[in-house]
């Protein structure tokens, strides 16, 4: 499985990618929606793990952009903000199962990714 990680926290997203690669999962990372879209032009991924709050383009907007180009792409969202309206909007859009609150346990993330891919 090939995973695209997008989070504005470079330290977080790069470490996460490295840890996934320890577990045999091929992961690429970017820190903005624009970079992600650029990367997607050249590479193919099975699943995208997006932060909800990205600079300029939010996680949900990015999802829409990607889906327009690659309808088969699966998504999982990560957020530090699990409250009120954000939470309701996020879970309504993505489903509560695909909405993980930081900090995320790596095992839980892998489990969830496998689940999403299996379901579809």
């Amino acid at each position, binding site marked *: 499985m090939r995973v695209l990680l997008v989070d504005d926290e470079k330290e*977080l997203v790069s*470490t996460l990618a490295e*840890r996934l690669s320890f577990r045999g999962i091929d992961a690429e990372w970017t820190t903005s929606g624009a970079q992600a879209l650029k990367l997607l032009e050249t590479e193919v991924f099975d699943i995208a793990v997006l932060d909800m709050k990205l600079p300029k383009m939010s996680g949900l907007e990015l999802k829409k952009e990607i889906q327009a180009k690659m309808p088969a792409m699966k998504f999982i969202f990560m957020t530090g*903000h*699990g409250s009120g309206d954000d939470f309701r909007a996020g879970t309504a859009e993505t489903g509560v199962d695909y909405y993980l609150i930081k900090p995320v346990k790596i095992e839980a993330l892998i489990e969830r990714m496998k689940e999403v891919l299996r379901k579809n």
Partner: protein
Amino acid sequence: MSLLEKMKPKFWEFRENTDDPSNFRHIWLLMVLLTLLVAIAPLVSMTMIDNNVSRKSAESEILLRTSRLVSNTRRSVSFFLGERKAALKFVVYNTSFNELNDPMELALILESLKKGFGGFVDIGVIDASGRQKNYTGPYSLEGVNYSGEEWFREVVERGNYISNVFMGFRQVPHLVVAVRHDLPDDSFYVVRATLDTERFNDLLFYLEVSGQGDAFIVNQEGMLQTPSRYHGKVLEKISDPIPSYSEKTEVFERKNVNGEVLIVGYAYIAESPFILMIIKQKDALMDSWHTTRMEIAGFLMVSIAIIFFAILGGATYLSNKIYVLEQNRDAILHEVEYSNKMASLGELAAGVAHEINNPLAIINEKAGLIKDIFTFKEQYSKDEKLMNIANVIISSVERCASITRRLLNFARHIDINIRPLCLREVLHEVLGFLEKEAEYRSISVSVEVPDNMPQLESDRGKLQEIFLNLVNNAFVAMKDEGKLDISVKQESEDSVAIIFMDDGCGISEENICRIFEPFFSTKKKAGGTGLGLSITYGLVEKMGGTIGVKSELGKGTTFTVMLPLKTEQKE
């Protein structure tokens, strides 16, 4: 419950300034006292004024009536005596001296007087020298010389005479009437007649004297001239003093030896030694006035009682209404204030949690990476110390994460948001907040949820708030090493009971009915707002449930929260 108990306002037991900041007790008292004053004072003063006026009028009426009676009776007595004198005068004018000296003629005259007027006993003719020239009657008094007698001198001097009453030979009271008649030769003679007093007495005897009254005639020495009901027999001296001379009828009040007030009316009867007296008992005369007064007093008392209860009831009803309204208003205001506070607190918590979550995630990933490196690269995998350090960092991050998650959960549930949830989880989440305190104070907390418990559809945040409040209260009530048992029971098909049983200090009976009232707190000095349980109560109601409490002072308290298994989402 007595009537007065019912009329006691709800806030009566409150201590001033602490439980009753709006001073309802003071307002109620002021309202009752002022209304009572303006309602009862005019009533009482009107009754008192009327009492005085009517008493004075009754008294003056009595005096007036007595005075009228005395005047009328005096006129009757005067007329009676005048009539006898006139009869004798008629005799002397109609009959010559010589004819009067004829015993047969005199006997005829006596007979005529007896028949015409009645009461004449005898008649005598006395010449200027005082010698009785002729006499007809039951005694033989012919030839008796009266020249030395007082009465003879008086009749010679004044032309007529009426004697005091005296006992005759037959022990019958009599009085004497005498008139002088002048002859052409400057001489004169006197005609004297004795009358029995029966007709005289009848004048007074048949008099209707009200108020246990007594009417009699006394002479100027105080000797009774006619029989009296209460003052003695004829010719006995009365104990009362003789009133001073007055031409007119007089009426006055005086007290007798028993202290009873008497109304005394009297009149001196002209050209006689007689004083007519009528004595009445004032109390007896005032009887009807007293009866009316008692009726009015009774009516006044009943009116005052009705006014009193009406005012008390009205004031209590109104102030209770105002009190309840104020309580509701305060509760709503504070609920709003509380929700606002909770909302901003929620925002703050969410903001903090979010800000912390990102660096926490980096720490988590970095520590995870260290661990991964130690796990996946052989040259490091034997260094257990470093591995432990990484594990400690990761578990600490996990602890921080659970705190930020709770904060986010808390913030998320400001509005009602019904979801299926597991009661056991919610209870454990709540206890998570108080874990450390329980640990420090060695409080043991047990949670018992049956395994076959159906899933509850409710608002997680609200439930957390309710449970947190109840657990917090229990912790405050308990001493160190206390015990809190939380159990869940399915009460019916669609309701569940969550029971919080502590072994704390308990709640007194007088406080237990007020614990859900806003601002009621036994911990005010320790900073309690008195809002916790009232908000809990409001939340449980909002969730469609009920909350009950049982407590025994010194033994502990049990709160039971009954919730529907499915809470309706209200818009």
